[in-house]
């Protein structure tokens, strides 16, 4: 009764389910960080750099302390902090340094940061670094800036609107901070989201729909 074909078919069903669902990803965050994003506009009226500051939660920070405390003194010295920065910089390269910039809906490429600076204050890991657009980005049209982890491992929170700031914004531009309502996003983008879930092998990018962003209209 267990003919090849039947078993094959039977085996293929859970198998194909696996294949179909590959690509969707909604890991639950294990890491929380209070984030601050500062967009610096240069004298030439282009976006010079984006400065990130992330303050990680106490619990996660304590595990990092234990993991990187190579000299076992329960403190993180400069060499140990440097090591954390290097590991993070290398890893974030695959995730655009949690930075998303778009110009009139087109994604803008960014240069890798020179370094990710790490500090340990009051039991919390602090990271700060700056990224620049790969090519000069003029203040024209609709510019959108955001910081989020596409894999949803880390949840970056901009607690207040003051945590998203623009330095040197010309008077001709207007600034808006958008905090998408998840239910609305789901309703409006059902097709796109489903598409993103099934067709994007890296999967995770639909989290951008839910991320807080700063928009400049010039």
């Amino acid at each position: 009764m267990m003919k090849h074909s039947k078993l094959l078919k039977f085996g293929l069903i859970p198998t194909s389910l696996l294949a179909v669902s590959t690509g969707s990803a909604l890991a639950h965050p294990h890491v929380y960080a209070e984030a601050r994003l500062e967009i610096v506009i240069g004298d030439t009226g282009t976006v010079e750099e984006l400065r990130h500051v992330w303050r990680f939660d106490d619990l996660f920070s304590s595990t990092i302390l234990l993991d990187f405390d190579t000299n076992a003194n329960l403190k993180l010295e400069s060499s140990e902090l440097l090591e954390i920065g290097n590991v993070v910089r290398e890893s974030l390269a695959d995730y655009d340094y949690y930075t998303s910039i778009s110009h009139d809906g087109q994604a803008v490429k960014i240069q890798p940061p020179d370094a990710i600076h790490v500090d340990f204050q009051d039991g919390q890991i602090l990271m700060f670094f700056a990224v620049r657009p790969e090519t000069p980005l003029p203040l024209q049209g609709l510019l959108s800036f955001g910081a989020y982890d596409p894999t949803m491992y880390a949840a970056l929170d901009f607690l207040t609107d003051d945590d998203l700031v623009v330095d040197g914004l010309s008077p001709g531009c207007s600034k808006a901070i958008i905090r998408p309502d998840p239910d609305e996003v789901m309703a409006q983008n059902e097709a796109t989201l489903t598409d993103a879930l099934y067709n994007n092998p890296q999967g995770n990018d639909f989290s951008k729909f839910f991320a807080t962003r700063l928009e400049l209209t010039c």
Partner: protein
Amino acid sequence: MLNRHLRRSIIIALCMLILPFVLTPVLAQSSLGIGTAEPTFNGGGFFSSLFGWINAQQQAFYRSLSTTLKAMREDPQQLWILIGLSFSYGVFHAAGPGHGKAVISSYVIANEQTLRRGVAISFMAAFMQGAVAIVIVGVTYFALRGSGISMTEATHTLEIASYGLIAGFGGWLLWKKLRPAARHQHHIHDHGHDHGHDHGHDHGHGHAHAHRHDHGHDHEHSHEHGHGDHHHQGASDVCETCGHSHAPDPAILSGERLKLREAWSAIVAIGLRPCSGALIVLTFALLNGLYLGGILSVAAMSIGTAITVSILATLAVLAKGVAIRFASSQSAAMRIGNLIEIAGALTVLLLGLVLLAAALQA
């Protein structure tokens, strides 16, 4: 004998049952490069919104947990709140995507397990997870600090061992199920069981190689390709086994002692990989001298997890019972039961392989 339509509808029903469990693994390594992430699953459509809601609950618990732990440094009375929160966190964590409940549910489906045994396994596995978390953090803190072996690495090693064991366990369950099924076939050749046994082993090795290979040359896309490869291999291996090995070995198939050993294999395979939440809470507790708080918090989490997993395992067993009751005849019922059990075993195997692939890529 088995009505074609019925069989099809049973298969569909089974898929509905497995669907929430057989979902996507996410990177075992965290995107940040530091800290432990555990591979989890996610379903599309309906399940993504369900998991989304569970995620939101978990975030809320995690935040409260973190606040309470910090408050405990000054006010030990917060211990009760901590225990309550940890329990709730356990309940919700287990309801979210994760490997333990999927493996246990599939295992109890794959076996003629009594509900009581399913519940007992769920509890034992959850307690073992808690105990392993305590051991990992304790050993890291007291013995490994400064040794160059980080908690993340220790966890990762256990994770690979756990997923390898799950895959092996699934393979063994499948082997056990397919052998008697094959015995029912008409074309019995006497190849002897050595032959079949070798097959089983080769099977496992083949998969392991496939993983490493993918890992080596294609980081970005290896997830998908890797899976495709397994499935093909998996499916054809199943067929090969089905066609060629027929040695009955009643001695191995019976015996209460074996069942017990099997249950323990499941418990160890699942319990080896502790949940990251427990590790994080324990680390923080230890670094802040909250020893009792940390241990009680993990114990409460384990109980919460065990309750949820038990409920899911119970549902799985009941669903199987319903499917069997739908059968038109006794022989059909037996066949459906068999199919469901094979699917359960196959699910354990696939889950183990997929998770192992994800873990090895990290």
